[in-house]
């Protein structure tokens, strides 16, 4: 591989990593938009009547990612929430998502009255202060600008079975049977029902990912075919096959490092509170890993199968 074609390969690696990161960000943002348009419920949410403690233990046992909501007395715009696993991120324009480690935390819309005390923003509910960790809505001016979500001990009504909304992707059938769910009215699809986004977006995503994978495979093959001539020369000069392979793979990896770091850094800055660092890192590295893998296999195949070289 000469410098020019190596540069071209690095360009392709960069391109497909960007595409992968963009698809991941798109996916999260689209889901968040969808939640924002439907009172923070996805179209999979169901309404059940149970106690918070029982529900939480049932869901924890089935290992499902879900969010459980209950309206708090007094104001319909204030809800308490428990998260199990890793549900889709909520739409936020600043701050961060709720975390399991938060003893008390609040997510509030931009129009919610909050208290400021020594640089700490809090929301007061029944005399208890909940630190505000994030602001709801992809923009400050949003459909959830008056919404409050609280996480904290004792908020769920555990004295008797009461109505709550469970929102999770694949809740265990056994759990569902025990809960006798009824669909939640709010889960009718909200704003998303107005357009065909519900099937357009998954198709776009699926084909986007296929495109990225195909592009990555093609890049790997292209890189392997371009380094073939150099490998032949090295082999004829007496280098060992394994040595040649390692040398070319390491060279490719080294060249990929800088653009990948740049993409990851830019994406982390740009993505805001919508996507976790782990997911960003995964999306950045996935196409590059595939390219390097295909490159290694194809190069090895070319090196070992061509007996005529000797």
């Amino acid at each position: 591989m000469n410098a020019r074609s190596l540069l071209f390969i690095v360009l392709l690696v960069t391109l497909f990593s960007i595409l992968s990161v963009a698809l991941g960000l798109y996916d999260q943002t689209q889901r968040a938009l969808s939640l924002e348009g439907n009172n923070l419920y996805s179209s999979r949410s169901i309404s059940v009547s149970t106690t918070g403690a029982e529900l939480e233990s049932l869901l924890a046992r089935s290992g499902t990612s879900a969010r459980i909501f209950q309206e708090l007395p007094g104001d319909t715009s204030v809800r308490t929430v428990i998260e199990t696993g890793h549900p889709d991120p909520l739409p936020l324009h600043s701050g961060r998502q709720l975390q399991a480690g938060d003893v008390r935390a609040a997510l509030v819309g931009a129009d919610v009255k909050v208290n400021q005390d020594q640089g700490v923003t809090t929301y007061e509910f029944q005399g208890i202060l909940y630190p505000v960790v994030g602001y709801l809505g992809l923009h400050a001016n949003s459909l959830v600008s008056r919404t409050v979500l609280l996480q904290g001990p004792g908020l769920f009504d555990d004295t008797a079975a009461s109505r709550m909304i469970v929102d999770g992707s694949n809740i265990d059938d056994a759990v569902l049977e025990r809960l006798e769910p009824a669909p939640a009215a709010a889960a009718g699809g909200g704003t998303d029902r107005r357009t065909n986004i519900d099937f357009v977006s998954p198709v776009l995503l699926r084909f986007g990912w296929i495109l990225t994978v195909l592009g990555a495979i093609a890049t790997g093959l292209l890189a392997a075919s371009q380094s073939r001539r150099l490998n032949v020369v090295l082999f004829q000069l007496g280098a060992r096959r394994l040595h040649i392979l390692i040398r070319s793979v390491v060279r490719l990896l080294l060249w990929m490092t800088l653009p990948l770091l740049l993409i990851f850094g830019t994406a982390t800055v740009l993505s805001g509170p919508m996507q976790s660092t782990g997911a960003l890192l995964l999306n950045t590295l996935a196409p590059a890993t595939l390219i390097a893998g295909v490159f290694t296999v194809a190069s090895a195949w070319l090196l070992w199968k061509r007996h005529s070289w000797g």
Partner: protein
Amino acid sequence: MGLIENFRGTLLSTVTKVLIVAFLGVTAYNLVSFTQSTRDAVNRSFSDSAAADLYGLSDHLTDPDAFEQYRSSSDNIRKIARFYDNLQSDRSLEVLSAFDQNLPIVNFEGGETFEYGYGTEMALQGPHLDESLGGVAVNVKSMQMNQAAFEFYNLTDAAGKAFDWESIDYSNPSTPVLLGSNYRGVYEIGDRLTGNLYSRVARFEVVGFLEPNSSMFYQNDLNFYLDDYVLIPYPQSIEHFPETEAYFYGILAFAMINANVAVDTGTSPDVVLSTLATAGNQSGFDAYALINVPSYITQFALVRNLILDNLGLLVTIEIALIIGSIVAIVALTRFNHRRRSQRVRALWMLGRRGSALSGTALATTVIEYAAIAVALVFLIQRLPNQDSTSGLLITAGVFVLFLLDAIWQQRLVKTTILGTGGKTA
């Protein structure tokens, strides 16, 4: 037969290229289809004419005794009816009258999703014996509304038939109703239903179905969908109601003035209040209350923004996909050409005519794009959103791509033949 030779050693890359173009085509098709769906949604519920300031109109007889006393007089009911008529005839505002209630329907054939209270905290009553109807009835969701509300929310009969508002008269033997789109398959046009409307046996005739996902602004929610509802039209006027049915028309009159008043955005509340005062003076009904409903115009703007945000997001990701695909397509085309160019050069040196070599290259491109077309048709037919305009646009797009690709590949062959294109090898 240089054509077959052209795919030797380039089969894998050619298949990859075909798949990439086909997949890109599918995503573009989807985007075009979504753009149209967005435009439809915006036209249906977010046109400029639907941008209005809303006020909530109701009576202020909150005390049940005062309410009963007021309603017991036929004169009072006529006053309300005149008040409603006066307001309706005023051009500066629109009275969007709508009221939801449970409607017991005897021998109901639909499932529990149509039941009043389904999906809310309310307990469902289920099938029960209704004595006035003389049979087992189910309380279903129903929405009563007037013509102004129906038109303001752009509700339409899915069959495109105009609803005959002038003919609505509750003293007729039957009242035409429209059903939400989820009622398709439960009832047919022409079916007759018997129900209990305000303690009076009422017969309804199904005259049509609403468009799927028909929505209106109700109970402070712009995303209030009517797919599970029976839509009962209000009569144009009830001023001349039969004296014997004062009880029924008394309830109806109060329901009818339970309305939203829509005025052009920016109209001063004083104008609305004075219009109401005039109507009140002329009719003799002044027990009304008016409250500002700012949530409509706020939600109107925000939901529209949300829909447009979604479109923006899709366009951005599609542009990223197009750039990615084009780079991949160019890389694969160059790779294929490099493989093929050695043969082209050899054949040229062996005396093959340039036009024959160009012809083979063109045939190769044609085969590539024929395969792309087949793959695209195969994939698009499997999508849930079929739409001919998007299909046409994508066909045009792929054709342009084909032309560009063919011209480029012809040039590559030419530079190879001329021997000046050392860099292409």
